[in-house]
């Protein structure tokens, strides 16, 4: 599916509770202090809910950046 960039961005900002200006389309885990391995669980769960998808166990371990997550959604969703 085509991923609506603004929906994707809003979902990530909400999930990580980012302040304005902290979002970048190429963020990866650890780039901002809010995105640690714990917050990552919320990112996965919130994306599943927003886009109606379900990550597999392997995906959960390997998808650790916004480009990877966006690509996965486009490929699978």
């Amino acid at each position, binding site marked *: 599916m085509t991923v609506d960039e603004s929906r994707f961005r809003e979902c990530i900002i909400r999930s990580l509770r980012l302040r304005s200006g902290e979002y970048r389309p190429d963020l990866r885990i650890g780039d901002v202090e809010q995105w640690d391995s*714990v*917050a990552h*669980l919320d990112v996965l769960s919130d994306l599943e*809910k927003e886009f109606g998808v379900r990550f597999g166990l392997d995906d*959960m371990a390997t998808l650790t950046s916004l480009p990877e997550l966006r690509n996965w959604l486009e490929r699978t969703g």
Partner: protein
Amino acid sequence: MTRDVVLLGDKTLSLLARHLNAELRQAGSAWNVIDAGYDSWLVAPLDPRSALFAKATAAWAFVLSPRVLENVPDILAQLDATLERLGSLSAPPTVLFSNLFADPLHAMPLANNLERHALAASVNERLLSFRETHSWFHVVDQLGLVLQHGIDALHDPRFEATAQVYYSPAGTRALAALWLRALRCLERPQKKVCVLDLDNTLWGGTLGEDGADGLQMSDSGPGLAYRRFQRALLELRRSGILLTLCSKNNRDEALAVLESHPDCLLRPADFAHLEISWDRKSQAITRTAQALGLGLDSLLFVDDSALERAEVARLLPEVDIFDFPDDPARLVGALAAYPGFDTLRQTDEDRKRADAYLEEAQRNASRASATSAEDFYRSLELRLTIFSAASEQAARLHQLLMKTNQFNLTAERLSAEEFRALLADPAYLVLGMRVADRFGDSGITGLALVDRRRPAAWIVQNFLLSCRVIGRTVENAFLAWIVGVAARAGAQSVAFRCLETPRNEVARNFLRSSGGVESAGSWKFDVRRPEALPQHFVSIDAAQVS
């Protein structure tokens, strides 16, 4: 000032800490959550260097998952050892312990789950019996959360495999909401009164249009929703919440329904105050608060009409407004979701409270027929029991310290831990007071914190009585008794500290007229002049005070 609560569990609780901290900040709470780490519940309490024993730590929260039933072979023995360890701490923190449930997703569920459920029930029974004897120990109803939402909505094996969390992110949100309520009710005064409309609130239909026979509150059909709501309100009443009425109706017609409608569970005597008139609800609610001697911020207003709710919300912003559901079938659920009546523990005084207002009405009738105030006081046969507080009474006395506004000389609140520290301090005399008269037993309704660090000049740091018992010379008797004890202990004076608050005028006026001398925010009483103290008509029974 923030107070730390440390999370202890068998799984990873960092996701709960993340959500709970966000919720607490949003609610303006002073609690700050710290995660003790993976599988910390058995080890951390034994380690004096753990966060549990840090100075800022005020509470421990045990959040166990059903995996302990599978992974800890001797779970009951381990639990007993943990409780024994908690019981032996010299200055125990506030402890919150979640009750347990068994996960039914196992091999051979029909045969094997029954024992697992029984084991979880044994754990829960042990928690409840420990709670019975330890006022600082509370049980948080995790089992209820799981029954409400279901394990499939709370748990996700993928997240457990990825991050060792039992609760999924969505489940963690629900769990955080439960723990938010538990922690908030430890730091916030409980609401005291539920103010109720009648038409389409206690029953379906409108009395003026449908007539008494057309009202819905029977055991079947659409009336059942209202009947179940009435039943829930009676449970509130038994738990110490006062019910009052605030309805626009003809008074006689509405009372006739409450007195004799066969389907109505609530009767006039269940209400501590009645307002049935065509006045504005904001006026009726103001009169209700005055009649009960409570602040508007102790009230919840329940009304099906959005217009009435808006009027009260605009004119009386201190009053909580019930989130009235569109569908009456959701009334009980909405009441369960309202956090203002939350408490983790009920005292005997809570269970007596609603009846106490009936007794008070009988007392007032007796006062009206008495020939003099003195005759009235004598006729009451007042009995006071004053005791040096022990830990068994700590929960009730601390509740009194937190809830009393009007007859409270300082309105200084202490946390549960600070209060228990005072109880253990030999320089302090923490006095509790019970009151009874021929109309009823009011239970523990008075508290004095007496500082004896200077043996010749005692200082009463705070002195407070429930407003239910004042006006019967009980306050005079309590004050005189403290001055008498100070005299016998060799003190020359007793000073009662007094700070002005917007609500404690009654207490300040009492002190002003009690024969003391004011200086620098306190009133000093000379123990050699007991005759200057105010008169009372109370027989006092005092336990040995040390």
